[in-house]
């Protein structure tokens, strides 16, 4: 079944309805596996048990950026291909991405206190650019809530999403371009990861688990948004009928 077939909201709902419980179950299992593996992983020789905050912090960061990337593709779907459900996908993803960004900032801050000695450092490029990403998420959500008509709001939010996408490479390469506080890349780099497999494997399992959780929440949110728009249309039709 191609993406074009799912463009019909009703067909999307009938496909999503049975998928959602399975997706939720798999996410829960993966999270249980990931969390148990994280607890079983060895302590770091320097950081001790504090390194385990990484198992939540790094996947949250990856998902925060992945979500904006997903929203950017949805934005292209709205503006270029006029896919009917593209703006629904973008609107549903924004709060989830904001939550993961906030989780990344908070866990990173809690991790920084024992390791770096400070909760925050304003001069660091990665901290600043992820904070800007969080503000951009809030801006897109604000735009969605200010424009009344959903399809017009969708097009406006799509443009803002594409403009904000320039922040993603800045976040990724910020630790390469500036050498301040946040450590350089350890996983996605030329030459392969520099983390020992005993810690890398639980990290990847947690990343997969949180990604599955993201898709579960996203699918559920898309369903809610489609139903919300139907309620709105029905209310408008009702108001027109009583006005006659």
């Amino acid at each position: 079944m191609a993406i074009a077939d799912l463009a019909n909201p009703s067909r999307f709902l009938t496909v999503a309805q049975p998928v959602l419980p399975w997706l939720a179950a798999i996410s829960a299992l993966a999270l249980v596996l990931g969390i148990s593996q994280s607890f079983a992983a060895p302590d770091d020789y320097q950081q001790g048990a504090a390194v385990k905050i990484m198992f939540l912090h790094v996947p949250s960061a990856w998902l925060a950026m992945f979500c904006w990337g997903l929203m950017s593709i949805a934005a292209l779907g709205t503006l270029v291909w006029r896919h009917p459900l593209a703006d629904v996908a973008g609107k549903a993803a924004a709060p989830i991405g904001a939550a993961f960004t906030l989780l990344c900032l908070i866990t990173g801050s809690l991790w920084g206190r024992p390791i770096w000695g400070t909760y925050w450092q304003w001069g660091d490029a990665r901290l600043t650019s992820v904070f800007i990403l969080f503000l951009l998420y809030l801006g897109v959500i604000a735009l969605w809530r200010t424009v009344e008509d959903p399809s017009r709001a969708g097009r406006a939010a799509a443009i803002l999403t594409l403009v904000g996408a320039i922040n993603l490479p800045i976040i990724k390469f910020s630790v390469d371009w500036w050498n301040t506080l946040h450590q350089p890349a350890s996983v996605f780099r030329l030459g392969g990861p520099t983390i020992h497999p005993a810690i890398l494997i639980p990290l990847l399992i947690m990343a997969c688990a949180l990604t599955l959780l993201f898709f579960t929440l996203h699918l559920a949110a898309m369903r809610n948004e489609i139903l919300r728009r139907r309620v709105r249309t029905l209310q408008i039709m009702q108001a027109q009928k009583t006005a006659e």
Partner: protein
Amino acid sequence: MNAHVALFLRDVRLALRVGGGAWMGVLFFLIVVALVPFAVGPDSGLLRRIGPAILWLGALLASLLTLDQLFADDREDGSLDLILMGSAPLQLAILAKALAHWLTAGLPLVIAAPLLGIFFNIDLLSMAAVALTLLVGTPALTFLGLIGAALAAALRRGGLLVPVMILPLTIPVLIFGVAASNAAIVGPVPFGTPFTILCALSLAGLVIGPIAAAAALRHAD
């Protein structure tokens, strides 16, 4: 006369004539900058250190205020529809409006900044540095603000939506503007490094701003 030049001159004339949009921006700049010594206290050493940063913040907020109405007035009297229907590329028409806005709203801030530097006891070299960085950085603020103004053009009760959308994008401009000002005053970073990045941000804004704003206006109905 070229259509874009005509649009540019029209916008300049309107901004200088109607309601003092240009003067209001400078006045707001003055008031905001004057509030800071009241809030922070009279310690002149502290004021001298934060002076360039406060001038940059004031310029940022003042240019945001004047950007709101960039497209709203034209939409209300119907000239935005004429511009959209025109045969000239919309991006260039928006660029003409943006340049007119910068000339009437951004440039007065640049001229006012050294005078307001007196509030902060800043010496001549520092004032010149701040003014130069503002000269190069305020175009970036105008071009980025274009995007927010175009997205919110159709809203009547937009309120604070445009600043909320645009301020995160202007944070890099602010960072490098203040970094360049401080580099000229105290070093140790050479002035050229943040200054050239600031120039690059303005040039990137010159391209991205009108394109995004044109897309926003075209998709608005």
